[in-house]
């Protein structure tokens, strides 16, 4: 393809995005667009399946049948999200096995929040309320992102996430209306999950490397700092209703800006976890690798069986 032809295609592509039309898998796209989407979408898919682990940790110990069923369904939803995000990523010309390989080798990242341990039942409430809450803020703009398969997957993901968020908040509300011990459990969970949830919205704008390009492609509509502010403004009044305290001494409503001012985030901790040295990084990855390796003989058997079946069909047809 000549340089002029490529330039022409690029112009058509840019114009489409400017008109808010979707880019579909068979459309021409710049290589960088394809790679960026593979990176972000697979990172998102990995986050869903690694995210199953901290919550899955409590399925066997859920405190009531109703909670157990809800938690099973929630973790199952996450598997479903992973499944259609992987499928959407595959439309960009990469296989699910390759994507797993990137996860297992540590090349691909997933959301750092899942490297924190779930140590009490209240953590299940806090994850739903805060982590899914922050995820929704991150993800709602993606429902109108430029890449069609991603945007469509996100519409469904967001609906389910917002259900999970309400469910998590309801767990917190029950705890906060319960005994002193339960309320303390809820406060302790908020103390541990608050800051990592703020970090989930990504590094500050001046430290974020992908923002500008992502804005152009509508992979992002707001900056990390804007999203973080939105999350804080929305969540603090919810904590007030629960009657528990956000663990930030500098948190204060600012009449002038119409937003909450908040304290310094410990970015050293954020980068430590991103780089693989959080409390559970090793365990999470090892668990995924084990599931994959222990399942190899099963996948091989399914494949061998399918091949035998199709051979039999061919023979019958002859």
């Amino acid at each position, binding site marked *: 393809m000549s340089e002029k032809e490529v330039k022409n295609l690029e112009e058509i592509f840019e114009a489409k995005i400017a008109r808010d039309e979707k880019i579909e898998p068979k459309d021409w796209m710049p290589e960088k667009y394809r790679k960026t989407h593979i990176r972000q979408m697979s990172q998102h898919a990995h986050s869903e399946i690694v995210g199953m682990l901290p919550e*899955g940790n409590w*399925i066997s110990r859920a405190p009531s049948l109703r909670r157990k*069923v809800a938690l099973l369904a929630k973790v199952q939803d996450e598997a479903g999200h992973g499944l259609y995000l992987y499928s959407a990523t595959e439309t960009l010309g990469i296989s699910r096995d390759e994507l797993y390989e990137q996860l297992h080798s540590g090349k691909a990242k997933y959301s750092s929040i899942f490297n924190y341990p779930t140590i009490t039942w209240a953590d299940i409430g806090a994850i739903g309320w805060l982590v899914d809450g922050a995820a929704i803020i991150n993800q709602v703009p993606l429902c109108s992102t430029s890449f069609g398969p991603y945007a469509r997957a996100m519409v469904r993901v967001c609906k389910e996430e917002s259900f999970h968020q309400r469910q998590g908040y309801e767990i917190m509300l029950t705890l906060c209306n319960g005994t002193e011990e339960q309320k303390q459990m809820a406060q302790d969970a908020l103390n541990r999950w608050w800051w990592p949830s703020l970090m989930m919205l990504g590094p500050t704008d001046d430290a974020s490397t992908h923002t500008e390009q992502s804005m152009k492609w509508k992979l992002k509509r707001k900056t990390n700092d804007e999203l973080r502010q939105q999350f804080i403004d929305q969540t603090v009044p919810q904590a007030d209703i629960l009657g528990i305290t956000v663990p930030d001494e500098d948190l204060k409503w600012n009449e002038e800006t119409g937003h909450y001012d908040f304290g310094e985030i410990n970015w050293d901790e954020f980068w430590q976890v991103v780089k693989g040295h959080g409390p559970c990084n090793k365990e999470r990855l090892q668990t995924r690798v084990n599931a994959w390796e*222990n399942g190899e003989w099963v996948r091989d058997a399914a494949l061998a069986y399918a091949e035998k079946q199709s051979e039999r069909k061919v023979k019958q047809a002859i």
Partner: protein
Amino acid sequence: MNNNFIKYLYGIADNSLILGQRLGELTGHAPSLEVDIALTNISLDLFGQVRSYFQYAAQLSEDDITEDDLAFLRTEREYLNVLLVEQPNTDFAYTIARQFLFDHFHMLLMTEMQKSKDETLVAIAKKSIKEVSYHKRFSSDWIKRLGDGTEESKQRIQKAVNDLWRFTDELFHTTEADEAMIKEGIAVDVKMLKDVYYKNVNEVLETATLEVPELKYFQKGGKEGIHSEHMGFLLNDMQYMQRTYPGMKW
């Protein structure tokens, strides 16, 4: 009658409860995402059934109890599930073999339960049978895939079936409470299901190119509340919150 009826309900409900609990341990750890979703689905179905049985048992009971008291606050000796369902998730072959051996029984049980004189049991059976027929298809398909898949998968599933076979006979035992309820026309006489069960199971095993185990000695006890050593650990997990924080609402 009431007491026997409640015991009968425990027996059926506990099978679903304990198997659902075992499957729940696997969420996030299955060989593929599709299988993960399917196993969780089965677990969800089973817990849904448990809730129907326990809500009914709580309603019939003279004591002021809830579904959660029944699920989480009995002692080990009071759980009346068969030994089969409490066996651990040793590997995917054991998970599938356990499921398969139970599903075929469960399907026959739900089919017959639709003829019970008790309307609530009939309603639960009618709802459950759709779910159980999916479970049975899922586990039977996997028996065939593993049996007629690779050399390794064949060995593994054969070993799992052989090991778990000793627990199948207990599915067809009846307790005193069961017998009393059979007389009332409420309970299913599971003794009558045995032949057709082995016929159905053997058929699938043969299609899967697997050997039907030949066994003279079987294990029993679960239905009388005498469980395997695995049960205590399972309950430890399952009852953890209710035991640690008694009397609280969640």
